[in-house]
Each structure stands twice: as structure tokens, then as C-alpha cells.
């Protein structure tokens, strides 16, 4: 034991800092942590998906692919999947546009820039529950301030029940989530913008490139390493968002905002169909995994400083 300790100390003192065992040793704790909290629970979820488990923690029998057959034949599952796609794609478009506009504006020099750069993130730092209370009140059909503007400005004769009508609920929830996340995305893009050497723009100006050309030929390619990772993680995050929807609408009205994570939660904790919920979970993970693999294979990573991508 003594000898082992000494050799471990000698190992930490070893001058060859870049050596392989040291690299493994440093990343090891995080990997172990993720294996215990993600890999093991996931294997368990896969197992539960093959059983008829009802309420959490009860005995269950192995029923093979029956849950998968039930789920895939369930119209509710297919519409929830479609809704998840609309949620992710719609949200991504709105957020990207807002975030780019914000990042480009914040990248300029102006008085009060530090204040703007700090507090733009307000909607991201406040808890989801606050966002739910805030928007539920402001979007209320009878006395919400949003409807004051809707009716006084003549956008609609009658008040719009933003969160309560099947037609409006999904777009509304998408907008609220975009409102919450676009500042964070904007700051990540801003960070990318700041890493672009100013000389590139100077040279392009000298060569007579206009603002649009500079954006597409310098800004976008230079941002690629950031956009690559943010595009991947952001999509995965978006797909998996649960709390905003749950606190705003609980998936309603009549399922209008029921995305896959909401459906999983509802099946597991309100429908007491743990087996089915797990089967849906596995299908969702499989879909996201395939998406990620295709993304990594086909989306250009751009050149990165760190040579990791």
C-alpha cells in the first residue's frame, strides 16, 4: 500500500504533463459521475420499457415489445412527436433570429454596453416558475395586459386566450421559451463574434465587400465552431424541455402543447403506466441519438482553436 501511494505521488509529480494516464485520470471523475447518473438509470429505463410496470417501484412482468407496439400504434404518441418537432424547429428559428440580432447589436461599441450585456440575460436567470406566473398573468384571456393591446390596437376584436385555446397554446409556449433562451444563445454567439480578428473585416472592406458579403463570408464561417456545438446541444436541450410547458399548460388544452417529454411525465406519474412511459423515453433517446450522429457526420464543424472538433 505504501509503495502504491508513493508511486501515485511520483506519478502526479511526473513532468510529462500531456501523458495519457494523466488525461484519463483527470476526466475519470466526471465520466464516472455520468455513468452512475445517466448510463445506469438509462439501462434501467430500457429494462422497464419491456415490462408492464404501472406505479413507480411496483413489481412488473416482462412483456417484450408490447409497450413499443402500443406506443407506436398510439395516435397520441405520433402527434406528440410531431409537436416536439414543431417545438424544436420553431423554437430554434425564433431564437436564432433574435439571438443573432441581439449578438450583432451587443458587439458594437455604445454607451451602456456592459449593462446591456449583463442584464439581457435576465429572462434566463429567473426560475421557470417565475416565468410561468409572469406569462400566465400577462396572457390571461380576460384581464391580461397582452389582451389589452390586442383589443385596443385592433389586432383582434375579441381577446385571445393565448394559453387556453388549442390553436394558440403551442405557438405561445414556443414564444415564451424562445423569450427565455434567446439571450443566453445571444451571449454565446457574441463570444464567438469577439473571437473574429478585426483585420479580416478591414481586409474585406479594402477589397470592397459590402456588409452582407462580410456577414456571409467572414462572420458565419468564423462562427461555425460555436454554432456547431450550440446547434447540437441547443437542439437536444430544446427537445428535452419539460418544466416550462408543464408549468404553463400541463400539456393542455386537450393535448395541444403535449410534447414527448410532457407525455412521458404524464404517462408515468398521472397515467401510472411506467412501462409505456419508459418505452416512449427509449424511442425519444434513440431519435435524438440518430439525430446527433447524423449531425456530427454531416454538419461541418468549422476550425477550432482547440483542435478537438
Amino acid at each position, binding site marked *: 500500500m505504501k509503495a502504491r501511494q508513493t508511486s501515485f505521488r511520483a506519478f*502526479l509529480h*511526473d*513532468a510529462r*504533463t*500531456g*501523458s495519457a494516464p494523466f*488525461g484519463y485520470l483527470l*476526466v475519470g*471523475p*466526471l465520466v464516472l459521475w455520468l455513468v452512475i*447518473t*445517466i448510463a*445506469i*438509470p*438509462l439501462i*434501467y429505463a430500457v429494462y*422497464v420499457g419491456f415490462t408492464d410496470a404501472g406505479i413507480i417501484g411496483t413489481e412488473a412482468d416482462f412483456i417484450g415489445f408490447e409497450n413499443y407496439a402500443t406506443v407506436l400504434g398510439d395516435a397520441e404518441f405520433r402527434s406528440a412527436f410531431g409537436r416536439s418537432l414543431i417545438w424544436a424547429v420553431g423554437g430554434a428559428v425564433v431564437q436564432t433570429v433574435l439571438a443573432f440580432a441581439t449578438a*450583432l*447589436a451587443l458587439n*458594437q461599441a*455604445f454607451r451602456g454596453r*456592459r449593462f*446591456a450585456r*449583463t*442584464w439581457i440575460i*435576465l429572462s434566463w*436567470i*429567473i*426560475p*421557470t*416558475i417565475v416565468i410561468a*406566473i*409572469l*406569462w400566465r*398573468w400577462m396572457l390571461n384571456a*380576460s*384581464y*391580461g*395586459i397582452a389582451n*389589452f393591446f390586442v383589443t385596443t390596437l385592433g389586432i383582434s376584436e375579441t381577446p385571445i386566450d393565448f394559453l387556453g385555446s388549442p390553436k394558440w397554446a403551442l405557438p405561445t409556449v414556443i414564444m415564451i421559451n424562445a423569450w427565455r433562451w434567446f439571450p443566453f444563445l445571444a*451571449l*454565446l454567439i457574441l*463570444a464567438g463574434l469577439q*473571437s473574429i480578428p478585426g483585420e479580416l473585416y478591414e481586409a474585406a472592406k479594402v477589397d470592397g465587400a459590402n456588409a452582407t458579403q462580410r456577414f456571409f463570408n467572414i462572420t458565419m464561417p468564423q462562427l461555425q465552431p460555436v454554432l456547431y456545438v450550440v446547434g447540437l*446541444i441547443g437542439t437536444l436541450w430544446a*427537445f*428535452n424541455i419539460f*418544466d416550462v410547458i408543464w*408549468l404553463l399548460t400541463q400539456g393542455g388544452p386537450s393535448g395541444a402543447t403535449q410534447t414527448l*417529454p410532457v407525455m*412521458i411525465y404524464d404517462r408515468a406519474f398521472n397515467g401510472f403506466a*411506467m412501462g409505456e*412511459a419508459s418505452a416512449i*423515453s427509449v424511442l425519444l*433517446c434513440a431519435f*435524438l441519438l440518430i439525430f*446527433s450522429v447524423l449531425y*456530427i457526420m454531416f454538419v461541418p464543424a468549422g476550425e477550432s*482553436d482547440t483542435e*478537438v472538433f
Partner: protein
Amino acid sequence: MGYAVRQGFRYAVVVVVLGIVIVPFLWVFLASFRPNSELIQQGIGINFDTLTLDNYRDLQQAAQYFTYLANSAIVAVSSMVVSITLALLAAYSVYRTRYPGRRPLYLALIITYVFPGVVLLIPLYQLMGKVGLINNLLSLVIVNVTFTAPFSVWLMRGFFGAIPAGIEEAAAIDGAGRMRILFSIVLPLTAPGIAAAAIFSFVWSWTEYMFASAFIVDEGKKTLPVGLGAFIQQYNIDWGILTAAAVATAVPVIVVFAFIGRYFVEGLTAGAEK
């Protein structure tokens, strides 16, 4: 002339975007001081004569606010410390050392976000039950680290990339050991990145709702979002107490951010500047 117009346009964009983010919150902040009878009337007029602290008094009587606050602080700070420690070591490993399997490992870290929290909720609940961590704040720290550490690794990338090549070798030649190099050379150079990742972890943990609502049962162990979240059902349309609860939940993190917020932005951007 063209310059003035463009500068004006930039200001307009900044003001509009900041307004979109901040004004709704100010409106709710103001609402929390208005009597409920006014909050269920339409209109943008505010009667400044009727402003009151009643909503906060009701809130204080209905909820163990300071208990929730303390729990949230414990969870957020602990999650942040653990997350940053693991992420820092991992970031040094994937960005500054070379070994077989490094790139797949890095991709695997990023891909952890493939697995939805809600998917892990069920098995993690059972796992926590088995090890007796249900109703224990430690269970929340454990899941928060899982969801914050991988992204924190990526947030620090710019700073590790900016460390001059060969600085570790130079220190090693001078006789510094590996841990010494990590703590006295790498740590200071990456400090702003660590700050950004720390704030990211803190905010994520502070706002986390789903796991906290499932793992914690006791009133005395609840975090702020969960403790006051119960109000949404309970006080359905009592907007006075609800808006007061919203403000009381948001203010602590806003106060913290007022002090450290600028490091978040600097930490995200500074490492990448050329």
C-alpha cells in the same frame, strides 16, 4: 450621416431587445405591490395610491420563505462547486492532454444531453430511493452536476485554447509537479472561464424544478422554485400572492447576478478574444 443613422439603429435594437426581456419582469414586480382586486382588471393604468405590501405579508404567512431560500442556496452553491471541480479537471484533460479515445470521449460528454431529464427522472427516483437520498438535498446536487458539468467543460474551451503551448513543459522543467502546474498555472489563466461556468451551474441549479419537485417531499427541505411553485395550484388566480411569490423567487438570483453577472459575460467572451 450614415454613421449616425446606423448608430441610432443599433441603439434601437438594443433598447427593443432589452425591453422585451426586462419590461415583463418590471410589470410583474410592480404588480406584486398592487391589491389583487386591481390585478384582475384590464388596463395599463396603475393606481399608485393603493400600492401595498399586503401580498408579501400574505406570502410570508403562507410559506416558509427563508427555509426555501436557504435550501436553494445550499443546493445551488454545492452543485456549483462540485460541477466546476469535475468540469475543470475534465476540461484540462480533453483540451490540454493527448491520449487515444479523446475525441470520442469529448463527443460523449456533449452527447449526454441526448438523454432527457424526464427520462432519467423515473430511474433516478428509484435509485435515490434505494440509497436513501429521497428527501435529501444531496440528491438534487447529484443531478444538477450531471446536467451542468458537461456544458461547463465546453464553456471553458476558449481559455484552455488560449494557454500558450509549452507553458506546462516549461514549468515542468523548472520542477513543478502535475498538480502544481494545474493549480498554479492553469487555474489562474482559466479563471474567467471558470467563473462563467460557475455562474452557469449556479443559475441552472437555482432554477431547476423537475427533479426538485419529485425528490423532495418535506416542506422544510423544499427549494424556492418548488416551495413557491406549489402556490400556482393552491392560489390559482390570487395574482397578488402569486406575483409576490414570483418576485421573491427571482430577487435572490437577481441580487447575486448584480454582483457577479459581469463576470459571466466576460468569462464567456474574454478567453476567445484575439
